């Protein structure tokens, strides 16, 4: 393969990988707090992109991004309080099905609010035609924004979970809900925080990638399934592994274009997911014993 082409695929793999990793981290945060997979995770990323596309028409871009993230985080918290808390004690099955219903409702609401057209978001720096050259390949400066922002999110989350009281409390709840509440932590509140955090991260990912990929109301389902693939790939609940797995999957997807038609790109990803689930459900980096503890 041409070396410039190779770098080009590499870069596009990195971008996709970062986004999938961000969605996967969202999955993991909620999974650790509640033990469920939130099927509406991809819709949060869609909401982020759509909100910033609308808001950036009237306010500066940085403010639009901040507002989109804040609004989506609030929506995530609200969704948890209104729809998921009442069913939380009635089993995992019910919560999963509720999030499936939510994903449809959020998608349809976005369709009604924004219509079926594809939206564009202004580039964070430069414009459509500005490009950076490296190793013979050309790419948009937005690529650097995506990579930088993803790295920042990962670093920020690590610090949050390691060093802040709230982060430690959330980890405590994930490890032992009853034990945490004996220590004066309110587990219900932590679940709400987890949803807000996860929705916010999803929205942020949706915002930063939107200038490159554009956005429309229907992108959520695919992001959900790919984000889940990545989360499962890395081992559910492990955010650091999710980043590695995200990059692997992104590369796989971008290089798959060499072998299969572009239209089947997503089919490749999903087949990887299915194959992985069949062969090693605990993920590449997860241990079998950890999965045995988490039946669902």
């Amino acid at each position, binding site marked *: 393969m041409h070396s410039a082409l190779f770098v080009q695929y590499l870069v596009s793999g990195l971008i996709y990988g970062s986004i999938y990793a961000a969605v996967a981290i969202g999955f993991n945060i909620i999974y650790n707090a509640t033990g469920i997979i939130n099927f509406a995770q991809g819709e949060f990323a869609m909401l982020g992109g759509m909100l910033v596309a609308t808001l950036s028409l009237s306010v500066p871009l940085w403010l639009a991004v901040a507002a989109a993230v804040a609004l989506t985080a609030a929506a995530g918290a609200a969704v948890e309080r209104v729809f998921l808390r009442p069913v939380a004690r009635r089993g995992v099955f019910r919560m999963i099905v509720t999030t*499936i*219903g*939510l994903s*449809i409702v959020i998608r*349809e609401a976005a369709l009604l609010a924004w219509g079926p057209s594809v939206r564009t978001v202004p580039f964070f720096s430069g414009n459509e035609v500005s490009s950076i050259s490296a190793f013979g390949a050309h790419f948009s400066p937005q690529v650097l924004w995506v990579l930088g922002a993803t790295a920042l999110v990962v670093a920020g989350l690590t610090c949050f979970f390691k060093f802040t009281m709230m982060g430690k409390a959330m980890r405590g709840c994930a490890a032992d809900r009853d034990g945490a509440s004996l220590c004066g932590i309110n587990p219900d509140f932590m679940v709400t925080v987890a949803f807000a955090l996860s929705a916010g991260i999803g929205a942020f990912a949706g915002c930063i990638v939107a200038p490159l990929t554009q956005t429309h109301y229907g992108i959520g389902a695919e992001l959900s399934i790919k984000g889940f693939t990545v989360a499962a790939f890395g081992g559910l609940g492990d955010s650091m592994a999710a980043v590695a797995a995200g990059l692997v999957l992104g590369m796989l997807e971008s290089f798959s274009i060499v072998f299969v038609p572009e239209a089947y790109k997503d*089919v490749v990803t999903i087949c990887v997911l299915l194959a992985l*689930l069949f062969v090693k459900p605990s993920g590449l980096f997860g241990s079998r014993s950890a999965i045995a503890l988490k039946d669902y």
Partner: protein
Amino acid sequence: MKRLTLKAEGAGRLVPPAILAACAFVLPPLLGAAGAAFLLTQLTMAAYYVLASLGLCALMGYAGQISLGQAGFFAIGGYASAFLCTRDLGPAASAPLARCLDLAGLLVRGADPYGKALLSLAPWLSGLLAVLLAAAVAALIGTPVLRLKGHYLAMATLGFGIVVEKVARGSKALGGADGISAVPGLALWPGLEVTGGRAARSANFTIAWLVLALGILALANLVRSRPGRALRALREGEEAALAMGIDTARYKLNVFVIAAVFAAVAGVLLTHYNGSIGPGEASSTRSVRYVAIVAVGGMDNLVGTLAAGLVLNFLSLRGVFGNYDDAVFGAILILIMLLSPEGKAARAFHSLLPRGKGAPR
């Protein structure tokens, strides 16, 4: 409070199919006399969608295995049959296989929409092959998929549905985003054809509702049989069922294939009835619809699924939900999860529907 009970089990299991069969013959003249014969079209389509939901009811309600891929099997049935019977075998007419088929009377001569002569597989044969294909796919993916539980199972079946949709959308041979149209009618018997159009409307309504009656009768028999009890045991606790000597893996696979066959039969018949199929039939929103209908019906309740499916699909096909069509099904799913079956509101809601036996989940 005394509740209307209509058990889908015991001798009572014969009642719903009997009612359906009676409706199949009585409704067309009745609606015709009322000047509302146009409703038969949507009632026919609704019956086929309900057939797919009934299969899911056995899988999800009785065996407790969630599937978000039911629309995928529906589409495999519809697409495979449409593809096989619209494929022109003219260029290969002299090949040994084609000649054998021709001599056996399995090929039909027709014309495509542009008047070009077509030599293609007989629709009844293509339909049969399509159902077999769906069953084979289900058997193939069922073994690994059904080892998964909870959200892994949900995600894997969702992934399967998306793969089917993407392949349909991305393949030129399957018509891409437009799907396959000009699908000929499927002759069940000389003079009796599954096809659209005004002249065949009431006959097709009768066919559809009789198929539905047969479908629910078969499933009602299944769930009250020994395998049916095994399925319920496995739903309540897989390890316990295993300890009782139930081959859980085999039962799960069998019911998965049965559900796929129901969806594929529905897909084949509806495709020939409509004369077309598009990739939307495989979408995850469709699969969620089937899940929502089974949930409204009360999960392990065939009669409930039947009633909920007929009403909701009919309303949806009539365009009652307008722009909110898909959203309504999502919202229904959320409401059912919030309210049923422990909640009082849900109990009141469920008492409106005839109930099957079995503990609410």
